[in-house]
């Protein structure tokens, strides 16, 4: 796999999706970075372990974590950063193959692809959920710590 090329293409694709979703102009580059990191993690996991479902989970997880961090930095809603990053993980080719096999009356093959596409969609959702829960726990912990710190300084 050609790393720099894939990094560049996924960066460009996520940035282009940012334009389609009309995200604020100054966040376009960071949006591209989110898409790039998600895709690179997805690809490297996929190449290492050859499991598209787990790889998609990792990709979505990374996208959501990076999007949360950027949302804190920019003080903007998190979806601005995550939408474009999610798109490359969408199981487009599997859904397409399922559709094609249905048309060709090859239902066994079609069900195989459709189930894979469904599982991958579920993996995207679970990746988002895990990242969200993790970030919420972390922010709560951090808030409690700052509160404690302020308590100390007031004494």
């Amino acid at each position: 796999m050609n790393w720099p090329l894939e990094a560049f293409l996924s960066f460009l694709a996520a940035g282009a999706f940012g334009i389609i979703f009309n995200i604020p102009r100054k966040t376009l580059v960071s949006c591209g970075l989110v898409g790039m990191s998600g895709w690179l993690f997805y690809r490297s996991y996929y190449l290492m372990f050859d499991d598209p479902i787990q790889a998609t989970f990792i990709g979505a997880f990374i996208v959501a974590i990076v999007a949360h961090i950027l949302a804190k930095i920019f003080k903007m809603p998190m979806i601005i950063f995550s939408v474009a990053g999610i798109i490359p993980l969408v199981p487009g080719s599997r859904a397409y193959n399922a559709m094609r096999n249905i048309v060709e009356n090859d239902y066994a093959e079609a069900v195989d692809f459709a189930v894979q596409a469904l599982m991958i969609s579920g993996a995207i959702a679970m990746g988002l959920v895990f990242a969200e829960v993790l970030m919420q726990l972390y922010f709560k912990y951090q808030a409690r710590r700052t509160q404690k710190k302020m308590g100390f300084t007031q004494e």
Partner: protein
Amino acid sequence: MAEISEVRRELALDCFLLAGKVMMESGAETYRVEDTMIRMAVSQNMMDSHCFVTPAGIMFSPSNDLPTRFVRIHGRRTDLERVARVNAVSRRLVAGQLTLQQAYDEMTEIEKNHYLFPLWLQVLAAAVASACFLILMGGGWADIPFAFLIGGIGFYIVEMVLVKTRVKFFAEFIGAVAIGTLAVLVVYSGFGNDPDTIIIGSVMPLVPGLLITNAVRDMMAGHFVSGLSMGAEAFLTAFAIGAGIAIVLSF
């Protein structure tokens, strides 16, 4: 609850509902809209306010003994810049950097304007994204110009049909049919190599990414009404695209 005068209360209510309406119309998550409205209400001394947001309308009750207000949300159009702007205004209002009147003025300003990128730039972005996905999905370099063109044309057709008919699924169906036909024609006439990757790449700009993320996040926050309806919309969109491609492939 500290009493606030009626004029001020009405202004505050107008301001919250406007903020919610603009956010919802521009593609924010339901729970974020509720959160924003409640935060703004608390900053204006409305401690026991309630808010219920669905993709079709917003209900807001300032307190138990005051009348509830309702706004209907009509069309939705993805415009995340507006979401970010309303969010910034509400943050400044909550932080006390803006008065209520100033915040309301800024909200009306945001509501009147669209911050959309020009259509040609969006079409270009769709074309670039299609070309990128063609390579990422394992297509050959020789097919790049076709994915670029077909992706751009497909996105443009969807936008045009959407403007004319206002039916989202129909627009996506027509767009998918056009993409499929063009891709098959290009390969049939001997220019393109692989119709599958061209179609997959070109269809990507139509994928309902925002709906999927919003549905998941709303479901997590416990907003099942909007989560399910957005999920259904995402599913129907995907189905419309799939049906469009299937029709072409069946010939």
